[in-house]
């Protein structure tokens, strides 16, 4: 496989994953705003930060009112991480790696882009927002579904999976990191209804509210939520779930290619560190520090993969 093709696949799946996560963040933000309008500005500010669009947003806006934030995150051409830009970039990458995709996957990406381009051609009125957000997630799910149903499990599959998982782990870590103070036992609001709403928002941002409640019943504590999204090996958006997938994908690549790679070593180390962690120890060293460390190592792994597999000349 061409190094450029591996790169295109990796980024295409990162971009699709990120667009879906942005839609989720907006959804959680909307929910927050509906629940308590009072400090809406803060909430939307943290949504922008979590979406990784803080700098781009501040360059063009001051103040965080819902309409402008939502418009910026969903369809602003000036925001490289807007859903529209991400989907378009993913579609361009799909065109570039067309030979590595099945026809079904390509058609789903292309059709998804056509439909979203149309749905996001004008500012989305708030009455349509839920529909548009669900459309974004459905379109991304269609691509992933047809991919899982039709892709050969070879190196092509590994690069796509690595892209999806690396982006997802990064997003989950950022969701937690932006809100980490809410989960700290020392905050004054502990046990207040404000906290409950914040916690629920964190879980919603990762589409994890339902499974969390299912697993833990009424036992909603900051530590449990943090553990669920970081160390739980069954939760598909947790850091640990993603790192164990890195290991599988990179093991498979090394086996297919009959060679060792530095990225495989990094992935193993990262995964083992998470496996050996307890949430108590994480809180002791500091959740923020833990997440910051993870985001750095996750980035380093991404760069090492680009390097090991010759993404660039």
């Amino acid at each position, binding site marked *: 496989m061409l190094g450029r093709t591996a790169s295109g696949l990796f980024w295409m799946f990162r971009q699709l994953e990120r667009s879906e996560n942005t839609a989720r963040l907006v959804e959680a933000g909307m929910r927050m705003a509906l629940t308590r309008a009072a400090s809406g500005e803060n909430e939307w500010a943290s949504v922008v930060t979590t979406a990784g669009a803080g700098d781009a947003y501040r360059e063009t806006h001051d103040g965080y009112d819902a309409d402008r934030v939502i418009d910026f995150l969903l369809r602003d051409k000036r925001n490289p991480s807007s859903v529209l830009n991400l989907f378009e970039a993913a579609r*361009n990458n799909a065109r570039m790696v067309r*030979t590595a995709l099945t026809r079904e996957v390509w058609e789903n990406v292309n059709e998804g882009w056509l439909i979203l381009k149309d749905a996001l051609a004008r500012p989305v009125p708030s009455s349509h927002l839920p529909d548009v957000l669900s459309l974004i997630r459905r379109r991304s799910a269609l691509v992933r579904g047809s991919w899982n149903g039709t892709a050969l499990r070879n190196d092509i599959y590994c690069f796509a999976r690595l892209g999806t998982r690396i982006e997802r782990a990064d997003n989950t870590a950022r969701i937690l990191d932006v809100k980490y103070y809410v989960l700290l036992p020392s905050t004054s609001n502990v046990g207040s209804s404000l906290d409950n709403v914040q916690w629920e928002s964190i879980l919603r941002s990762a589409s994890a509210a339902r499974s969390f409640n299912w697993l833990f019943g009424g036992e909603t504590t900051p530590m449990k939520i943090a553990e669920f999204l970081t160390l739980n090996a069954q939760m598909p958006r947790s850091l640990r779930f993603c790192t164990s997938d890195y290991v599988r994908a990179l093991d498979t690549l090394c086996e297919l290619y009959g060679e060792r790679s530095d990225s495989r070593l990094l992935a193993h180390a990262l995964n083992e560190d998470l496996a050996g962690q307890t949430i108590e120890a994480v809180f002791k060293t500091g959740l923020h520090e833990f997440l910051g460390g993870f985001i750095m190592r996750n980035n380093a792994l991404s760069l090492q993969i680009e390097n090991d597999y010759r993404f660039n000349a």
Partner: protein
Amino acid sequence: MFFDEMLDENGEAREPYTAYCDWLKDMDSTALRRKAREADAFFRRTGITFNVYSDAKADERLIPFDQIPRIISAREWAKLTKGIEQRVQALNAFLHDIYHDQDIIRAGKVPQSLIARNAALLPKMFGVEPPGGVYTHIVGVDLVRTGKDEFFVLEDNARTPSGVSYMLENRETMLNMFPELFSGIRVEAVSDYPLKLRRSLSASAPPACDGRPVIGVLTPGLHNSAYYEHAFLAEQMGAELVEGHDLRVADGRVAMRTTQGYTPIDVLYRRVDDDYLDPLNFKPESMLGVPGIFDVYRAGGITIANAPGTGIADDKALYSYMPDIVEFYTGKTAILQNVPTWRCADADSLSHVLDNLADLVVKEVHGSGGYGMLVGPAASKKEIAAFREKLKANPEGYIAQPTLALSTVPVLAKSGLAPRHVDLRPFVLVSPDGIDITPGGLTRVAMKEGSLVVNSSQGGGTKDTWVLED
């Protein structure tokens, strides 16, 4: 009066169309229109678009597709294939001769000045032996029809003919929309073209190739107007779709950067023009090519399809010599007719052309894309007068042809079936094992009433082309 391929003077279906017209008369027009919308949606979803740069923002457009097929009988096609095969054979023999002994010039059949001063000539190809002796692996021969048995070659495309993906997707679309038609009417399949292309390219592998040839399709990239086709062909052939920056020369081979390091490519189906192929040997500023690829080619390290320098064979100045060229290399009279062409360099021809400017099409020998051209019947008196002076000042720079009465095939227009002018581009594969012509080809159709311009850049559309089985 124009020759309509579907209906005769009495409005009766001509022989190849009888079964189709029987089917058509039972179809209601609402259903057909719904099918047209379905086809549009299908093309959009599959992304069969071409890029246009008419405004600042690059835009992707669909080429209009018309669902009424263009139908050719087995007998007509048999005759055409013989003529095409002969012509393509002659093109390859001519190219070999021009880049080696130049017998045809010595025999006085083609003037030396026409070759020596031609911009399409690639002197670096002198004495180079292309792998398998093939120059034009893929040829598109543009044909027009003016009557029942009157076909003319409008031009040869010996560089990088495009459009074959439309031929294939048009058929796929028709099969999806009207499966019942194909169970009733036996139409020659076209779907094995990618496989044949792969075989044909493999058979032309260079001496350096050991084992199963590795094939790459070289594209200028995403923004090229034919990118869809490049990706489509690579995907269908199971070849790598490469760009110049994926490739480099190493150890006497051209190698592509894979996830596991550099791997040699044996055959490169390039969709990049000669000039841009190799910044070391040709245009130094080219970002699309591979530095040093031409040296590897000359040493037998890679097959480039089509070979560099084939443009000399489809040059406008040479077109009028094609009947002589065909006869010189095949020993037989050309089966396919050329459009009669007056070379204005010749004094008798010039006076004829000057007397008949209002009825003729006059083209610049080295022009392309319709620039510097006079279409007599459509020009004003003033334009004709101005052109007359240009022509007199530089007669050898021009050729002239009659305005052809292109045949028509109906399209489904708003008002119902309406005749529109068509041409035909059959696709020809050449390998050391022989010549293969895919039955049919790409029918281009002028969607505007009365228009003779079928180019997609001018709003032309396409039709599925059927060759009936015997």
